[in-house]
Every structure is written in structure tokens, then in C-alpha cells.
């Protein structure tokens, strides 16, 4: 089977006519009802609602199937890209649920290919994404902040070393407490952790999501080089997007290829430290929590068990799963930061739906992605949904009494 995520645009153009138009990628209901004797196991029990932009905008062109049709026509020069096409492709949340459903054709990769086509044709992408692209180019971060915050000042960690913590834009500029918590956990396990400090640049995920593959490739090469120069043997990332970008996209032979260091998500690291007895959880937290699988960590990187192992080890914590969990987890609405910026109303509605789903089973929603965290917090506030929202590293740091 072709491995779409390592493909380039030209290969997509050649193979695009594959969709059968069956609609499994967005139609309501499970994709498999039963096998005569029993209901499907979780692996095949796709949820009732699947595709956030389709649920919000209602029409087929906002579904994976509709986008496949449009992409096929456009790649075959049978249809012109118009404003509605651009909306159809940029409203995709990249949640990748369609990729789980449609194993042969992986529709989400078509969306990314089409965004690249839109940029290569010199067409206008949504304004907020242009702004983010400019920010990354001018300031090295998605927010356009000129000043790099000194988030680890109190810990005075080095800028070079074999183990480098990559904090990413969200944790660095919006949620320094989560980055700090991660580093404290690592240090308490005896890891000599380093951080590039103000040399750390944006991973470039938003450039890829915005279709600007040329700039993305340049950014990826620069980042890998910086980490290599700093002596990295292991890069530990707390951001689900950064992790997926390093792990899945940098390794694409059309981008960087094989990396000279290992890439580890903070939840993988914590779960492993816990297993090896290098860290211990002590404080009882007395909470009923539910875990939101970030799309970029779960479906895109296959990390489902480690965060749950961590939560299970925290004293006093009860984990209740939502209806949609694991590989069928619903998007938080942030949509790879694309939809939260370019389609904020849709992002809000999607986030609201997910928050209500969480609140039905728990009083605290735990996640392991700073984008999900920020979007959930903002949506809960604007929609008045009463639920605590917390990053898994923060919970760990609390139970280890590393933070208050």
C-alpha cells in the first residue's frame, strides 16, 4: 500500500482518482455495524459524528469525500480553484479521522496536497494563515513575538546537550508553566536536559498546514541543523504538533529524511521513567478526569496508551473515557491551529461539543497538547462550560510536588 505521508504533490496528482465516493469518511453512524454475532470492537466502531467541518458547514464539499472529488478535478485540470474550494480545503481540521476510516486512500493527505497546490498556484490563502506565515518568517514563532521569554530562568539549564527539550511556540509563549513542569519532571529523573533558548525556532508545522512546503522544508532543515549543532541525541517534545512534525514530516524524504537524533514525546518519556522507577508519584490528587487524545499525538503518531498509563499511576485519579476516545477521539476544534485561526466560529462549536462530551463523564479534562489546551480553555470560558482543563505534565508535576 502506498505510504501517502511520504509522498509529494506530483505523486498525489497521479493517484488522486482513487476515491469510490462511498462516504464512510463522513456519513453518520458506525462504519461497521456488527459481524452478525456481536457489535464491532472499538477498533471498528467509528463514532456517529466524524468530520468537524462537515458537521459545521453541512455540505459535502466540506467532507473528505467532497474534497477528494474536488482535488481530483483540480489535479486533472477539470475545475478551477475558487474561494469555496479554498474554504473547503482550509477548513479541514487535519484531525485524520478520515484516514483511520479510509485505510486505502487516506483522504487527509489529499487536503495537505491541495493546500500546497493552492499556494504553488499563487492563490490567496486565508488571511490569518498569511499572518502566521509572516510571523514565522519575521520572528521565528507563530505569534510574531519579538522577545523570547526566559521560561527556564529559575532552572538555568544549558543550551547544548544530548537531551534537548523542544518547547515549541505554544508552550513557550502562551503556557510556559507546562514547559516548566515538563523540564522539572525530566530534571527530577536525573536527566541533564538542555533547551535551545532563544535559538529555538518554530517547528514550521503551520507552514506545512498552510501549504507552503518550500518554507516548511527550509525551516525543517534549519531546526534539525540547530539541534544537531547543539549535540542532540534525543529531542523531547511536549507539543503534540511539534512532535508529529518532527516525527512524521521532517522524516519525509522530500523534507529532511532520517533524523540524526531520536524524537520523544513527553508522555512517552514520563511513562518510561515511571516504568523504570526513575520518578514516583506521591501526592493524592482526588479527581475524576477524562483524557482527550490530541489528533496529532493519537491518530497521527499512535500515542494512546502512555498518557493513560501516566494517569492510571497518579494516586486518587479516576479516569473515565468519553464516548469518542483513542483513535475515534473527536477534534478539539483547533484543527492544527488552522481552523482556530481561519474559522474561529467552527473551531468554537467543535470545541464546545467536545467539552460537553468531557463534562458528561468527568470534572477535569486532561490533554497533552498545548494547542488543544489553549483552545479548550478559551472555549470553556467564552461558552461558560464549567470544567477544569489541564495538561498531563502539570498533573504529573503536581503529584510529584514539583509545582503547586
Amino acid at each position: 500500500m502506498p505510504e501517502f505521508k511520504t509522498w509529494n504533490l506530483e505523486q498525489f496528482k497521479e493517484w488522486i482518482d482513487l476515491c469510490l465516493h462511498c462516504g464512510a469518511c463522513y456519513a453518520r453512524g458506525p462504519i461497521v455495524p456488527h459481524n452478525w454475532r456481536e457489535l464491532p470492537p472499538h477498533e471498528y466502531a467509528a463514532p456517529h459524528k466524524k468530520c468537524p467541518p462537515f458537521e459545521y458547514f453541512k455540505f459535502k464539499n466540506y467532507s473528505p469525500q467532497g474534497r477528494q472529488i474536488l482535488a481530483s478535478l483540480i489535479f486533472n485540470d477539470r475545475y478551477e480553484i475558487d474561494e469555496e474550494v479554498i474554504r473547503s480545503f482550509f477548513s479541514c481540521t487535519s484531525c485524520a479521522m478520515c484516514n483511520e476510516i479510509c485505510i486505502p486512500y487516506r483522504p487527509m493527505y489529499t487536503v495537505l496536497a491541495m493546500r500546497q497546490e493552492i499556494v504553488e498556484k499563487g492563490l490567496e490563502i486565508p488571511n490569518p494563515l498569511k499572518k502566521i506565515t509572516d510571523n514565522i518568517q519575521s520572528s521565528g514563532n507563530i505569534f510574531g513575538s519579538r522577545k523570547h521569554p526566559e521560561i527556564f530562568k529559575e532552572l538555568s539549564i544549558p543550551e547544548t546537550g544530548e537531551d534537548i527539550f523542544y518547547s515549541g511556540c505554544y508552550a513557550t509563549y502562551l503556557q510556559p508553566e507546562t514547559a516548566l513542569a515538563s523540564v522539572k519532571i525530566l530534571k527530577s529523573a536525573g536527566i541533564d536536559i538542555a533547551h535551545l533558548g532563544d535559538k529555538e525556532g518554530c517547528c514550521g508545522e503551520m507552514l506545512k498546514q498552510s501549504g507552503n512546503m518550500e518554507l516548511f522544508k527550509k525551516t525543517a532543515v534549519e531546526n534539525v541543523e540547530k539541534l544537531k549543532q547543539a549535540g542532540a541525541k534525543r529531542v523531547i517534545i511536549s507539543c503534540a504538533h511539534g512532535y508529529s512534525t518532527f516525527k512524521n514530516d521532517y522524516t519525509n524524504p522530500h523534507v529532511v529524511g532520517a533524523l540524526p537524533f531520536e524524537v520523544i514525546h513527553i508522555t512517552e518519556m514520563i511513562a518510561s521513567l515511571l516504568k523504570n522507577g526513575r520518578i514516583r508519584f506521591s501526592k493524592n490528587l482526588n479527581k475524576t478526569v477524562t483524557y482527550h487524545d490530541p489528533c496529532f499525538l493519537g491518530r497521527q503518531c499512535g500515542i494512546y496508551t502512555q498518557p493513560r498509563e501516566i494517569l492510571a499511576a497518579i494516586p486518587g485519579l479516576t479516569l473515565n473515557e468519553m464516548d469518542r476516545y483513542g483513535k475515534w477521539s473527536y477534534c478539539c476544534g483547533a484543527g492544527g491551529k488552522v481552523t482556530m485561526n481561519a474559522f474561529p466560529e467552527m473551531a468554537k462549536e467543535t470545541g464546545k461539543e467536545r467539552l460537553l462530551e468531557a463534562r458528561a463523564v468527568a470534572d477535569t479534562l486532561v490533554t497533552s497538547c498545548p494547542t488543544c489546551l489553549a483552545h479548550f480553555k478559551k472555549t470553556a470560558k467564552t461558552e461558560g462550560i464549567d470544567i477544569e482543563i489541564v495538561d498531563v505534565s502539570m498533573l504529573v508535576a503536581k503529584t510529584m510536588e514539583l509545582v503547586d
Partner: protein
Amino acid sequence: MLDENLIKELKAIVGPKMVSTAPTVCESYAYSFSLSIDWVTRPEIVVMPTTTRHVSEIVKLANRYKVPVTPKGVAGMTGHGGPLHGGILLDFIHMDKILLIDDKNMKAVTEPGCSFFKLAQELFKKEMILPTAEYGPGPNVAASAITPVNGFGKTRYGRNIDLVEGFEVVLPTGEIVQIGSMAYAETDFGPFFRYITGPDLIGLFTQSNGAYGIVTKIAYRCLKRPPYWSFFTYYWPLEKIRKCAEVLQEATAMELFDVHINDKWKFEAFKYLTGVSLVPDDCYFCVIFSINGFSQQELEGKRKTVEALCSGLEGKELPGIAETFFDAWPTFFCPPTHPIAAQLADAGYKVIKGGYMYLYDSMNYPLSWFPEVYEKIMEIAQKHKIHGPPRLTVFDGFPMKSQVMCSQTWAFVNRKDPEWMQAIHKSTEELREWFGKRGGTYQQCFPPVLPDFTWTNQKSAHTLLKRFKQFLDPNNILSPGTF
């Protein structure tokens, strides 16, 4: 040119977010779930009603503006589920509620956009089952009942339309009527029986493409789901085709859940790619049996009866095939998600460098005619060099109650490759000619493609259908071009 006032009024009926005239939106509705035809017609307006009242108001409005209205259909991977002449396309995907599951009287009533998967899931929880194989994730319950084509996926119980017991329909005037069991829906008895006093009206709306009315509620007859199931395969060599046919006839007359036949070419894609054969050298026809029972003894009894039938007619048992295709997770009727289907797609990539299998006929005929029809299909396929690897012309047969065989033939062909498509089209035309002269009609595309055996072979019926159309829909508003 669309009247701006029409758009305004449509938006007033269903809400502004449920109407679109954007070319890109409409373009995405121009294509169907089809392995057989590339019929592309773009609607001018896509409207998503959420209530029967919406549908009624839309139809009244369409009459005033003389704009066609077509409900989105298509079933079983064949046919076209969109408009034939532009106008308004009604997409019912947001009108998908299950309205009733009556486990005592074994009935289910849903809105038209409910998917079979959703309905099947809920029925399962109440120990019921729809004896259909026409799941396919795309088709919704009403779409499959109104699409006038045959396609993949039937059990011995027949097509989905054989399970329909009642409709709520919006007529071309906008009037809402309840027919069949739905005529009883609001009474104390509920939708219990298909037949009302007088003629059975259900048939006027099934396979109608929505030309006589738009289905807004649909009642299905369900079966109790037995807890014991068994799936097994017997095979015959090519020269024993008549013995195999005899088994099909006998087995279809028994109380089994399903009988299905494939020739060996279905499994040859694996051999072609890997060199490993899934079937023995002397295997040519595989007959797959799905049986069930309310007790282990009943199941074993049925299995023994079928095994005696098969062995008595020189069949040999073939372990592994039925168990893999029909018993494993997930069900086979979900092409893109099934691991085996994914492998088929993989074979498609590798063998034909793109595309997927192409369905080039779909026909119904007396089960007793199976040997003659099969031999003709293969004779024509050999003549046009689509028989055997790499095109792997595959026969897929669904014997049904009433001793009717519904079969499709498909091949791995890249639709972009003019040479192979020409060979396929020549085979299709030659077979249609042979088949049509015997009284058969192709049923995988609608309206029928030329030569038009569908109407020439059913002349008086066609005349009556047209007369009904004129009477019910004088403005020719609903799905024009259907009859």
C-alpha cells in the same frame, strides 16, 4: 439562470445555512458512489431539508418556479444518485433519525438519510437484523430504496426494496401521504403490515428515482437475529458448472441466510501479486453459505443438510474463504475499511496503476440460466482479452429467493486507460445485446444506456410508468428524465 427569489424562498424554508448555489458545493454533489458509470450532472442548488414539512414546501416552490427536484440516491456501488437535469438536489444526510424500533413486531422506521450502518447497529442491540447485504456506508435507507438499479450486496432475502413495508412520501404537489404500513403508523397498531385495502402502492415509489414522490419516512421489515451463525465454502471445477448451478437452486430454496457465488478470479489478484493461491488448482466456482439458527442443534442441522447437498453434487469443502470474507471483522460490506478490501485496492494500485475494480454489467435472470449466462460472459471477456490476469474478470453472483440470480461482473481496469476501457465497453455492449434479446435488461445504470433494452423489453410497463408520471407530476418537477 436561477431566479434569485427561488433561492430566497428556499432559504426561508430550511434556513440560509442549508441552501447553496455555490458551483463548488454543487460540483461535489455531481458524482456518485459507483463502480460502473461516470455519470456527472451538477445540480444548480443543493438543499438540505430536516423535516417532511420542509420537503413539502420545497416541492410546492419548485412547482411554482418550474425547477426540477431530485432526491440524492444510489445504492450498492452502482447507478447515479444525483440529478439528471440540474435543478434542486435534496441531500437528506441531516435528516437521519431512527423514529421507531419495534422489537415485538420486528419493524423499524427511519428518516430517509439514516445510514444502514446506524440502523443496523441499533437493530442489533434489540436482537434484530436487516437481512440485507446492501450496506455500503454511503447509501442511506431511502436512497437504496429509490435508486432504480441493481448493485452489489444482496442476500437470499433479496434487495433492500424487498424489505420495505411502508413510506411517507411527499407527492409532486407537495401533499404528504402515508402508504403501506406507514398508513397505520399513527394508529394503535403502529406500522405493522405492508398491505392496505386496495393495490399495493409501495412499488410505485421503489426504484423510482424519486420521480413520483420523495420518500421522507421509510418502514423496514426486520428479522429476529439468531445467535448461532456459520460460514463455509464449497467449490466446483469449471466443467461441473451445471452441478454447481443445481446446488444454487436447491440451496436458495432452503431456509438459509445467504448463498453467494464467485468464480476463482476473485481470489486470483492475490495469486497474481504474490504467487500464493488462496484456492486449490481444481477450484473454479466457490459457493459461500451463511447459515444461522436459534440453537446449536438447528445450526448443525442446517449445515449437515447443505453439506449433504454439496457433496452429493460433487462439491468439495474449502476452509478459510467464507470465514475470512464473511465472518471476520469488519463485515465485508464496507469496502474501504475492510482489510481484505484494502488489499484488493492494493492489488488495484499495483496491477492497473490507479483506479479500482470496474463493474461492467449487472443483471437479473432465472437462476436456472446461470451456466449459459456465465459461459457467455466469459466467452465475450476472452474475446476482448479482459479474461484472466491482469484484468481478472470476476463473477459475483447473488442467488435470491424466487430463484432469481442477480450478478455483476467486474474487472481491474484503470478508467483513464482508453485501450482497456474500450475493451470493457465492447464486452458490455456485446453482452447487453445477447442478454437483451433473451428478455434481460442491464440494471447498473439509470436511465438505461443504449441500446435501450430496459424500455423495449418492458414496453407496456414503460408506457404505464410514463402515464403515471404525467398524471402525478404534470409539471415534470420530480427527477425529470427518469421515465
